[in-house]
């Protein structure tokens, strides 16, 4: 009997499922950042709004990267449905706290995938996910840096205006 399973795809059903789950999470990140951009825009933080528009685009690119990987390996990539995207925040600071929280969640999720891949001996996907681990290093750095500005600059007086102007200057090098 031919090994039809392997002929069609090198992804196991389980790995395909966790990758589709990650596709959904990246799409959710993208939607969440868009909501954050909306909040910042509405409240007069134009630079932060731009920052989150860019983040939102990046997350969509992450989603597509996994999407195409699944298809390239003969699997089925599922276009995700995104529900319950938070769009109200209590403060400028809370937006950035949530952004960092979201990045931490994504890092954990990617760690879990790599863990599952090792168990399934799917080293091809481990190699693929390495790019995401590196990306998370940068993403967490930027999110943490942004939040630190609130302590360094302080929110009193024109503090928030100043923070908004420092946000675009954060770079990971």
């Amino acid at each position, binding site marked *: 009997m031919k*090994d*039809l399973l392997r002929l069609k795809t090198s992804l196991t059903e389980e790995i395909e499922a966790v990758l589709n789950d990650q596709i959904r999470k990246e799409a959710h990140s993208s939607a969440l950042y868009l909501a954050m951009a909306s909040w910042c825009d509405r409240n007069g933080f134009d630079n932060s709004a731009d920052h989150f528009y860019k983040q939102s685009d990046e997350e969509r690119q992450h989603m597509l990267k996994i999407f195409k990987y699944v298809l390239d390996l003969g699997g089925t990539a599922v276009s995700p449905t995104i529900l319950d995207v938070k769009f109200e925040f209590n403060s400028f600071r809370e937006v950035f706290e949530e952004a960092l929280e979201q990045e931490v969640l994504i890092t954990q999720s990617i760690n879990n995938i790599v863990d599952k891949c090792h168990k399934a001996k799917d080293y091809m996907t481990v190699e693929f996910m390495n790019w995401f681990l590196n990306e998370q290093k940068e993403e967490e750095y930027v999110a943490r840096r942004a939040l630190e500005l609130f302590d360094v600059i302080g929110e009193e007086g024109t503090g928030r205006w100043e923070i908004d102007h420092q946000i675009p200057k954060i770079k990971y090098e």
Partner: protein
Amino acid sequence: MILKEKRNTILEEVFRTEAGCVYQSDVENCFYVDFGGRAIKFSILCFFRLKTLVDKVNLPDMAACPERSSDIEIISPCACEHCYVLTLAEIAALKELLAGAKVMLELNSILKERLCRLVK
């Protein structure tokens, strides 16, 4: 069973239960699911799509729901021309059949890897 008649493709039995049987065709690279009085041909992708859909059905929820329409579930994988209209018991049986088939396919995969590919 439906598939007793002669076909021009040789079918190998993957897994059988009381309720049905899954066959593989090495010539056509596809599966035949003989279940509920019909044998339906599935491509590899459609076969796993079918399994995903069947696994998604939550049997306890279905049993607990008082509406008449929840007695049956319609499953049409991959826009195939075929669809299944199944009762709760039938879904349980199909779940078992497909899960068993998947284990056998994985076993076949492992055997191929260990016995054939690795020694080449």
